[in-house]
Structure formats: structure tokens, C-alpha cells
């Protein structure tokens, strides 16, 4: 390769086209990228070391800060790991409430990322609508848990407090408004717009063999025809009591992944309605004694759930003491952000690099930790 025609530039961390504080260093010739590598580590706080210095219950306040866009999945996986090693049963009403919270978090994450993708190609109206709709869901979270973004609500043994019937009515009214007024507007403005289709069709293609080899899951696999969903393959919480579908498409490009985000939101609305209709009565927390003296026997476990980007897992090790011995975090976009940038970005045009980075759902704090 003739080095005199290549130029190297730093794309971000200070750039509106990257999803967060993350950078890509690439070389280009003409208008096409020829080689790339990731510049990660700007958000490293040393979570795994900090978790070993705090008691088991104090970590429930530290853990949501690992993934900023969808913080409830962290609390859920931490509680599941604790309950798996200690063999603790959770009451059925708490399972239903946990599933409702996770589905609401999924809807707000998807609508925010559709807005971010649209801002990447210049459709700023959809960005404003996305942020506004997400705010209505954050109002419901504030009523249930007391905070907008970091809830600290799901903890080992159940959830922190109960939900009243007026709040369930508000959730159902919001679901009706989303399905009947907001989503048809979004459909007409963004999904039937020939400019948006041209910018997204055929770009950032990842095939089925490449995705399985790399370890990418979630929308990246579903856009290639594989109906991968951990809520059906390894059911957790109350997902074995509800019926829903897993949408798939054929081409594996950015247009298919954004359509999967919209279809996932409609399925989540269906799941929330079924859960609220069938929720049983009972307690919401098993009694584990004094919070400052939680203890579980020696052992280890690897637990994982389905986040909006794919498989999200923790590997937890306990040595029978008051603090965790080791917690290892596996983010959903770790292979894409570190390995996928080097192998699959060369060949795209410079104006399509933000489309590549945002439509794959790269979330930097989960692999920087």
C-alpha cells in the first residue's frame, strides 16, 4: 500500500458523530477508509476493583453507573447472580414488577437511540421527538422509584417497594398514547421517508457468519434471520408467562437494525399490557436479615440477560465473606467496539462512519468499565 496517499485522522472523542466519549483512529484514501483501530479507555473508572472494596448491599448503588443509557439491566444481573449463588427464591409479584421495569427501560432506550441515529443523518425533528417521548417514561420512573435516571430499585431478594394501582393506570394510558399517536407520526416522518431509506439501506453490513464468529448477539443477529432472544432461550423473571414474537429480517444492514428497534418497542408494549393484567398479589421482598451483614456461601455463577443491544452478563465469585471476591462485566457491544472496528470498518465512506458507529449500538462505558 502506498503510504504517501494515506492520511491518518482522529475521529472523536470530541465529535458529535460518536456515541459517547470514544474515538476511532483511521486512515483514508480519497473518500474511503482503508484501516482503523479503536481508541478506548476514556471512561475507565475501575469498577471491578471498586466492587471488591464495598459490602454486598452497597454495590447496588454503584452498579447502575456501568451502562448509562439503560441502567436497570445492571441491577437485575447483579441481583440474579447473588440469588444464584445463595439459592434464594424471589416472590412472584417481584418477578412481574422486575419485568415491567425492564421493558419500560427497553422502550426508552430504543426511542432515544432512534433519535440519535436520525440526528446522525440530519433529521433533527425525530431527535427532538425521541428525547421528548423518553422524558414521559422517565416521569413514570420518578413516580415509582424516586429518581429519573439511576433508580437503585431492584436488589437481591426482590424490589425495594411496591407499586400502587394508580401508577399502573398511568402506565397503561401512556402505552395507549405511544401506540396510537406517537408511533404513527414516527412512521410517517422517518420510516416512509425516501431520504432516510437511501442513507441506511446497504450500509454497515455484518453477515451471519461474521457475527457468530465475533460473539455479537441481539439485533445484529436478528437482522440476518436468526431469532436469537435470551428471553425465550433461557427465560428469567416473568417472561415464561407472556406471549410475544421475535421479529427478524434478511439483509443485515443498518436499515434492518433500525426497523428491529421499532418492532421491539411494539412487542414491549404488548408484554407490559399482559403483565399488568395478570399480576398476582403478595409480598415483594424475601427477608434476608440485616443489610449490612448479607452473606452467601462459597461459589461462582455466570448469569446473563437480554438487553436492547444483546447478551449482557456478569461472572460473580464469592468466598463466603462480607464483600464480593470478583465481579467481571461482559458488555453487549464489547466485541463490536474493539474487534469489529478493525475488521469491518475499512471499505466504508467517510460520511457513513457515524452511521456504522451508531446503528450497531456501541456503548463505550460497558467495555471501558
Amino acid at each position, binding site marked *: 500500500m502506498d503510504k504517501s496517499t494515506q492520511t491518518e485522522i482522529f475521529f472523536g472523542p470530541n465529535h458529535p458523530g460518536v456515541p459517547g466519549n470514544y474515538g476511532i483512529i483511521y486512515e483514508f484514501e480519497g473518500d474511503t477508509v482503508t484501516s482503523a483501530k479503536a481508541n478506548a479507555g476514556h471512561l475507565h473508572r475501575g469498577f471491578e476493583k471498586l466492587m471488591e472494596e464495598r459490602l454486598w448491599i452497597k454495590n447496588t448503588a454503584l452498579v447502575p453507573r456501568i451502562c448509562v443509557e439503560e441502567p436497570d439491566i445492571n441491577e437485575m444481573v447483579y441481583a440474579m447472580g447473588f440469588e444464584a449463588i445463595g439459592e434464594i427464591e424471589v416472590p412472584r409479584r417481584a418477578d412481574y414488577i422486575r419485568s415491567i421495569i425492564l421493558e419500560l427501560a427497553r422502550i426508552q432506550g430504543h426511542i432515544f437511540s432512534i433519535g440519535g441515529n436520525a440526528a446522525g443523518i440530519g433529521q433533527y425533528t425525530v431527535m427532538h421527538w425521541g428525547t421528548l417521548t423518553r422524558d414521559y417514561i422517565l416521569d413514570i420512573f420518578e413516580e415509582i422509584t424516586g429518581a429519573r435516571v439511576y433508580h437503585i430499585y431492584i436488589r437481591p431478594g426482590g424490589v425495594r417497594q411496591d407499586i400502587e394501582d394508580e401508577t399502573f393506570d398511568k402506565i397503561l394510558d401512556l402505552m395507549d398514547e405511544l401506540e396510537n399517536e406517537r408511533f404513527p407520526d414516527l412512521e410517517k416522518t422517518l420510516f416512509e421517508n425516501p431520504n432516510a431509506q437511501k442513507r441506511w439501506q446497504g450500509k454497515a453490513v455484518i453477515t451471519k457468519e461474521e457475527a457468530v464468529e465475533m460473539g455479537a448477539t441481539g439485533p445484529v443477529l436478528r437482522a440476518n434471520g436468526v431469532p*436469537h432472544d435470551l428471553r425465550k432461550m433461557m427465560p428469567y423473571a416473568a417472561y415464561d408467562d407472556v406471549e410475544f414474537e421475535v421479529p427478524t429480517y434478511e439483509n443485515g444492514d443498518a436499515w434492518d437494525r433500525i426497523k428491529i428497534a421499532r418492532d421491539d418497542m411494539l412487542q414491549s408494549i404488548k408484554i407490559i399490557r399482559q403483565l399488568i393484567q395478570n399480576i398476582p398479589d403478595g409480598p415483594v421482598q424475601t427477608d434476608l436479615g440485616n443489610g449490612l451483614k448479607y452473606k452467601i456461601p462459597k461459589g461462582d455463577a455466570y448469569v446473563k440477560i437480554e438487553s436492547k443491544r444483546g447478551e449482557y452478563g456478569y461472572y460473580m465469585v464469592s468466598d463466603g465473606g462480607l464483600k464480593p471476591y470478583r465481579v467481571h462485566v461482559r458488555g453487549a457491544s464489547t466485541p463490536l467496539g474493539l*474487534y469489529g472496528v478493525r475488521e469491518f470498518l475499512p471499505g466504508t465512506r467517510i460520511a457513513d462512519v457515524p452511521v456504522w458507529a451508531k446503528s450497531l449500538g456501541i456503548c463505550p462505558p460497558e467495555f471501558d468499565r
Partner: protein
Amino acid sequence: MRNEKELLELINVHLEPQAVEIKREQNVSVELAPKNLIQALSFLKSHSYQHLSTISCVDWLEEGAFELVYHLFSYDDYINISLKTRIKREPGIFQTAKEIWPVAEFYERDIHEFFGVEFKGNDNLEEMILENWQHLPPMRKDFDTREFVNDQYEWRDYNGQKHTD
């Protein structure tokens, strides 16, 4: 599609495990000697265990060992399997799994940066997340993070009352 017992029979027949255990539904754990691990990975990959979730490392300071854990998953059986092995803490050298899964290069780079384990065959082990780090690898159990912070940084002075930890 196998269930957990059939999987354990397959492992007992073809590999030489030191211990096997069914932990919970759909979760199995196997312990192996270090010289058998890479061959076990390619055997399982050809029997439908194609998804590598991640590679973890645990530091057992009193026993003088590092424990490496490989987590695999199968899209046919829906079973999670964790393969564990223990290597000596000094000198901390193991073989790479990059020939089987190319993405393992980055998980091993992460373990090298935070624990100091060398992987033979992987020549891309430079710094990725930290920058100009001159001290002990930070995730080891003999690196005390509170002592490091109290030496390196100063705390804010609130009218004469200083931070006491």
C-alpha cells in the same frame, strides 16, 4: 439437542476433566488441567458450541494461582458451559486461544493489562485502556487502591477538617 446429562457424558468420554458439575438448569461447569484446555475448546467448538461470551481471570493470592475461565454457549442445546483452569501465579504464562476465535485477542489483551498474564502466540499485548501506567497491574490482590489514592492525590480542605480515611 442435548440436555445437561448427555453433555457431561460427552465430556467425560472424549476429554479428561478433573471435575464436572451441573450448577443450575442450563448451566454446567468443568475443570481441566492447563495442557488440555485449548484442545477442549476446539473439540467443543466443532460440537455446536460456537459462541464465546468472554474470558475471565480470578486472582487466588493465598494459593498462588490465577484461574482462567472460558464461557461458551450453544445455539442448539441452549446450555452455558464454563471451562476453568488454574495456572501458577509466578511466572503466569499460558497459551493463546486466538487461532480458534480471533476475537479472543482482545480479551487476552485486557487480562494482560490488569493481571499481568502473558499469552504465548499473541503479539498484540500493548496498553489499551490505561495510559502510561507504571505501577503493579491494578486488579491483582496485592495492589491496594485506597493507599495509592491517598499517596497520589490531595483531598479538599473544608475549614480545617480533612478527610480521615
